[in-house]
């Protein structure tokens, strides 16, 4: 079986599990929603990794998405889920444009650390402006209606799950198209030879900015979904450990295509879910070991294991 076909089957299987499993085990519905929503954020990290750039501050866009919902409900009033799904990513994208104009001038460690710095500014503001944000307590997020229909909590978790799954399919397709497009290939070219890119008449900064804004959009979308799934937005959303988590998941899953984000998120959240139940405060230990194993034996991530067959078997 070719690697391509194998990947397709893995995707079909993944979608089937995400769609059917929670029907059997309702308690998994929210966990799977979280996995998928975080995978969306990680897609944004994967976009930047194409250019060889690692952002250690991407949780800020995740935070922007979450607080868009929280602030809107607090200061404007209840609104439809559809509005949040549009507004959160768009506001995150505007943030991404502003911050991006600055950070795309830098590369590698400077790029990573500047992103971290910006995210810490946002985190501090969310923590310290207690009057507006409730500080570390966060803001509760009420269950919104969808297209004017209100759901019971039990029904809503399925509504959110299937909506998230549909969004995952849409954004994964869009990201894959983007990575295969001229803009996507130019993004990869930043990693290998920026000099040549400039000598083809292309502005590397502009190419990176487009990728950055796209990744901010995805961060915002993930933030909206998780805030609604967990019914709360806290400064933790924008904290640096959260940013690290997204990078961690990207490396775990593999960065060669969109599917890696979700494979990584699934393993990460599942390990955390079970390890934290069994080992309380030592679940990071398990995750650390998992990452070490991945880096040593599957340097291209979980999806790299599928693609590895390409070298041996004729396709």
């Amino acid at each position, binding site marked *: 079986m070719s690697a391509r076909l194998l990947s397709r089957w893995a995707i079909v299987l993944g979608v089937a599990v995400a769609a059917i499993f929670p029907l059997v085990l309702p308690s998994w519905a929210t966990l799977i929603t979280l996995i998928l929503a975080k995978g969306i954020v990680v897609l944004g990290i994967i976009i930047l990794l194409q250019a060889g750039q690692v952002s250690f501050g991407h949780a800020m866009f995740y935070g922007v998405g979450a607080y868009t919902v929280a602030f809107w409900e607090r200061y404007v009033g209840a609104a439809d889920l559809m509005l949040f799904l549009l507004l959160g990513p768009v506001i995150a994208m505007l943030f991404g444009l502003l911050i991006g104009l600055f950070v795309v001038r830098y590369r590698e460690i400077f790029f990573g650390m500047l992103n971290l710095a910006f995210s810490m500014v946002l985190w501090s503001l969310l923590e310290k402006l207690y009057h507006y944000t409730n500080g570390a307590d966060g803001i509760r997020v009420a269950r919104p209606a969808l297209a004017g229909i209100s759901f019971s909590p039990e029904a809503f978790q399925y509504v959110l799950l299937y909506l998230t799954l549909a969004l995952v399919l849409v954004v994964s397709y869009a990201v894959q198209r983007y990575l295969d497009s001229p803009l996507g290939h130019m993004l990869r070219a930043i990693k290998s030879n920026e000099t040549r890119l400039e000598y*083809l*008449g292309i502005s590397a900064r502009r190419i990176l900015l487009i990728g950055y804004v796209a990744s901010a959009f995805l961060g915002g979308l993930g933030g909206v979904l998780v805030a609604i799934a967990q019914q709360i937005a806290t400064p933790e959303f924008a904290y640096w450990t959260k940013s690290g988590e997204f990078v961690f998941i990207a490396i775990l899953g593999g960065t060669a295509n969109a599917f890696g984000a979700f494979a990584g998120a699934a393993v990460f959240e599942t390990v955390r879910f079970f390890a934290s139940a069994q080992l309380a405060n030592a679940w990071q230990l398990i995750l650390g070991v998992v990452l070490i194993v991945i880096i040593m034996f599957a340097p291209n991530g979980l999806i790299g294991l599928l693609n590895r067959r390409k070298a041996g078997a004729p396709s």
Partner: protein
Amino acid sequence: MSRVLISARGLKIRFGGVIAADGIDLDVIEGENLAIIGPNGAGKTTFLNMATGYLRPQAGTVSYLGRDITALPPRTITKLGIARAFQIPQLFLDQTVMENMMIAAAAQAGSMSAFRHLLDLPQRKEVEDLLDLVGISAYANRKAFELPEGQRKLVDIALALALKPTVLLMDEPTSGVASAEKLGLMDILTAALARQKVSSVFVEHDMDMVERYAHRVAVWSSGKIQVVGPPAEILNNAEVRERVIGI
């Protein structure tokens, strides 16, 4: 009457104690292949860097068709029609030769789409023809890092040609290419340049190449253009033979 394409006037640049350019005046005329020869470290590559905006001269100007381009960045100068091939090939090593070429073609055509597949752009046919012309079609689907040095050199030149430039600046186009293939490469290259009406400047150490392919030769030594003229004249100049060619 042929136009002057690139015109350098009074270019000066020094790196610490090394004077690479000390009042360089040089014109590139439409339709010609201009060779620049000179000892190693004389500043020939520095000239290409200054002409393409990679380095800013400490004094002097570079103009292109009468427009001052001294302070412009490489990407802007490239868009104006000055393309460059490098002594050490500058490729996107993780991407295939075809992808490399299609990125150049997309840049040239301004196809900055986020949804169309790179390899399905309408420029594909032109790129295939260009790869044929340069003789590297067989490598189209190989990643650039897998290619031998000589073939990478060809891809580097093909990338520049895909930009459909008015002038192509080449830094030792035949270095790294096996001796037996040098003539073949230069035949192909000069034919391609003539067909696409591209003028060229090439820095070269191989005097056979210069004699055979250059219309004019500029001798660069000690930061100055010592003499400019037709190859037959320059290569028989006793002083040039002694100081530059080393015979």
